[in-house]
């Protein structure tokens, strides 16, 4: 890892070689080293105020995956076991252009005051290689209100 980056509410570790493309109060974008074919793997951390429980946050994320990505395939929704707040781990894919497809590993937490989303994406055929990085990002996510 090469440091951390985050919003006002949550932060993530930056994997070695990854680049911080954007950092604001509400959103952070990190991307894998350039040179990946077809699609540059990346992760987007966003936070928004909401007291709603994790079941609401998760249901909304599932609905958004379908609503925002025509042709999306919902693969899984699991309880994300680590962390101080209840969370979910979602996996879905969606087609891009004529030939490409993106796989999204989305982690969602409900802190009681905020919903925190970590959306990690890569080409589906790269998922095997990138999944360890995505898991590290999720496992390393921390929340400012816990400090």
């Amino acid at each position, binding site marked *: 890892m090469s440091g951390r980056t985050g919003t006002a509410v949550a932060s993530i570790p930056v994997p070695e070689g990854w680049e911080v493309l954007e950092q604001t109060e509400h959103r952070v974008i990190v991307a894998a080293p350039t040179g990946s074919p077809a699609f540059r793997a990346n992760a987007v951390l966003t936070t928004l105020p909401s007291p709603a429980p994790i079941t609401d946050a998760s249901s909304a994320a599932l609905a958004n995956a379908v609503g925002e990505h025509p042709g999306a*395939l919902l693969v899984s929704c699991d309880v994300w076991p680590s962390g101080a707040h209840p969370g979910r781990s979602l996996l879905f894919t969606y*087609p891009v252009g004529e030939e490409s497809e993106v796989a999204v590993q989305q982690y969602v937490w409900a802190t009681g005051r905020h919903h925190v989303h970590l959306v990690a994406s890569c080409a589906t*055929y790269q998922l095997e290689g990138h999944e360890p990085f995505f898991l590290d990002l999720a496992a390393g996510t921390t929340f400012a209100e816990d400090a």
Partner: protein
Amino acid sequence: MTTDEQASTWAGEPLEDLAGLTGGRGEQRDGPVVPDAALDLVARADRRGRVPRDASGSPEAQALRAAGLLDDGRALTPFGHAVRDHWRAGVTFLEAHARGERPGRLTAWPSSRSLLVAASAGADESPVPAGHVRLGVVPTSRFVSYLAAWAGVRPAWSFDLGPWEVPRADYEARLSPSADAPPEPPPGTGERAARLWREPWTEIVTVTPQSSLRFVVAGTAGALRVDVRDDLVALAVLPPRLLFLTLVTQTGAAVQGR
């Protein structure tokens, strides 16, 4: 938002009702639907791509014309040629066989950066009549999602379960289509396993030149890895995420020939 009361009890926290999810079943499937016998006629075309003269007026030939594989005469179209060439080459990228609630088969042949796919009815939402297959060209980079949708992979709560063993005869009986209510699980089956047992079962075997994978999709309740051992069958919960990743690995290995 509704909750899955049973899963919530087992998890010790409220869980969403994933069985009620609608949408998110992948790309709309398109491509011509042809009878199995019509594909056999394609394979019988001569070196120049002409089907036998005595078959050019047959229902199979009509079906091929309607599907765009045969011209107005008895010559294969470019798409028909592609189908015939793959069919004859006999080199498959992946075959999938399904039996149980939704029997069917899927064959994918390699074709440059895409795969030519012939798929009978699957667990997806685009019906294919019995005795027919849908032909399509699927980019290799999208094939695993196509396969997962066909197999009925979908979100489901997974609880650590297994492996547990059932007699082979019970397993086979469970896969046999029945108009009656689902069979009761074998005596001694735990509550969580029983939830899976009572769902409609489809066993799917995916085979590539490098490997094979056998699993059961239990309706909306999840999936099971299946390991047949003589007179016993070992079953273990296979969370959809892990199932999908396994399919990614299997198809990735097939792409690379490893």
